[in-house]
């Protein structure tokens, strides 16, 4: 898929060559999560994407890694990435300032089937911690096309109230939207928190959703495991649950071999998988 390079008009370049992006806003979500707003240097978006897709962010001389795009495609002005500080690259990213430039290539991977399987359905979003990042893209897409979908339930949990990413958006925008229920929980009791306390899987069972829904699940592997168990106990089938996988990626186009599990390349065939598809993969994720 050759495409015209925006920095060198007329030069058809490889998908491995990035574009320059400029950071136009940085939001401190939690002590270790920041959301970066990225624009093309001349304004506007660098590329169009679909909910659930990812992009490679690169700091020259440091490294490059895949991050999910947390803003919705319906946002016409910019793209956002919510990034948790956990390694070398993310540490460096967190030290960036508004106006700094980074390299971006993408979008990569598949997306949540918002225009096909999910259309017209009741949706249940289950997220833990930074797992909200890919789902937020879908949630906003759904809310911006509200009539195409049924009820929306959002269950979001985090270690503490301080670690809830996008709490304000959740409380002031999502919770107030039509036919949307937001459930928030934190792992341990905390002063000033009047909401629910407990792990996400337990809260999921406690609320007890009906099965006339499609669930979109994203979070740490241990949470995914127990949420899936809970969903199955509640009567959900594997075909009703979607999740995203995360593996080490270098090329983003299914060639370098790093994210290969079984016959799938997570960067190209994923990151979004339905649970029956995940089950068909060898247990190496």
């Amino acid at each position, binding site marked *: 898929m050759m495409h015209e390079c925006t*920095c060198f008009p007329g030069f058809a370049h490889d998908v*491995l*060559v*990035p574009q320059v992006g400029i950071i136009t806003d940085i939001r401190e979500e939690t002590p270790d999560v920041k959301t970066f707003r990225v624009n093309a240097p001349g304004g506007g978006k660098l590329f169009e994407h679909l909910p659930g897709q990812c992009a490679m962010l690169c700091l020259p*001389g440091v*490294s490059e890694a895949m991050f999910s795009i947390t803003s919705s495609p319906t946002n016409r002005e910019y793209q956002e990435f919510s990034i948790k500080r956990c390694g070398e690259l993310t540490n460096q990213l967190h030290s960036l300032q508004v106006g700094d430039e980074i390299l971006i290539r993408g979008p990569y991977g598949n997306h949540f089937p918002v225009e096909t399987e999910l259309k017209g359905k009741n949706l249940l979003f289950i997220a833990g911690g930074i797992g909200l990042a890919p789902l937020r893209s879908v949630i906003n897409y759904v809310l911006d096309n509200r009539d195409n979908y049924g009820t929306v339930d959002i269950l979001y949990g985090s270690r503490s109230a301080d670690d809830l990413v996008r709490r304000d958006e959740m409380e002031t925008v999502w919770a107030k939207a039509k036919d949307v229920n937001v459930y928030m929980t934190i792992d341990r009791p905390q002063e000033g928190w009047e909401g629910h306390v407990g792990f996400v899987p337990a809260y999921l069972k406690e609320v007890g959703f009906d099965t006339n829904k499609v669930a979109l699940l994203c979070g740490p592997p241990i949470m995914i495991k127990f949420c899936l168990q809970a969903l199955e106990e509640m009567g959900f089938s594997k075909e009703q649950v979607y999740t995203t996988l995360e593996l080490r990626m270098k090329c983003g*186009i299914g060639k*370098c071999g790093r994210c290969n599990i079984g016959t799938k390349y997570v960067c190209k065939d994923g990151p979004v998988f339905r649970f029956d598809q995940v089950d068909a993969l060898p247990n190496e994720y």
Partner: protein
Amino acid sequence: MFRIQRENLPGLYAAIAAESDLFLPVKAAGKTNYALWSPECQPDLDTLKTVKSPKDVFFPQSENLYTCQRDAGKLSVTPEKHRDTPFVVLGMKACDVRAVAVLDKVFLSAPVDTYYAARREMGTIVSLACGKPEASCFCGTFGIDCAAPEGDVATWLTEDFLYWNPQSEKGTALTGKLTALLEPCGEETVAREKDGIHAICQRLPLKELSLSNWGAEAARKNFDSPIWEELYHPCLACGTCTFVCPTCQCYDIKDFDTGSGVQRYRCWDSCMYSDFTMMAAGNNRTSQMQRFRQRFMHKLAYFPANYDGMFSCVGCGRCVDKCPSHLNIVKVIKAFEKEGK
């Protein structure tokens, strides 16, 4: 069919090199590897197997992708120029030519790897039949005929002559430039040569190697087999098998700070290395058994599942010769063969 006397081969090399770059097996410091021809080099068409495969010519062990400069906080990206001059690679064996078809599946499927595509477009393959197959060869298992290699031009080397047969447009074009050196000839000698090679192939120890337990359907079936646990122990987790392999295509992308810009380059990587899948969040293949399994499952099961049954092994036998621990794909195939019975 054309031919040229063996003693005139240096003239042929020079004639090809006058028009374009010429890569061929060259002996240096005691080992034969593909290298750019120069008048001083020592071409070696008699060694059957180069240590490294000619994969290097189309997919170099290391190549620059782009250079990034930072000037007053502003980044700029200069992509590396694609290969735009023709070149010839001479002496590729049937297995190595087939290996290029394997690489094509990966790099030329969408999204196309343009660096590779440019080299494929610019390159002309002159293959060479295997006069003396080795005991470690098993290309026949993959339906490859080492007496009649694919490629733009196929050649056969006898005691006195190199026989030359163009097989494609590119091959005909190359031949057209070399008419002063090549004389037309009959097919008889080559036919005899082929018969001779086929007779040797009948005596190869690995000629019975069967892939009946492999292929797309093995993707799930063989994954959980306890055989992997028995097999992997001697593996040193080095990358010898990967780097001598003509079809292994995994790569890494890295930065190099030259002091006047950051070069982003890609280089071969090995799924046998412990850090291959390591990321900040952890490693999804933590044991050598898993990494070992990945390499062979990929070649013998995942690849055929993704590409119409094509195996990503061509039976060149380099890994059989080179593994420091004498572990190799043949042993893996055979171990599952026993299990299947």
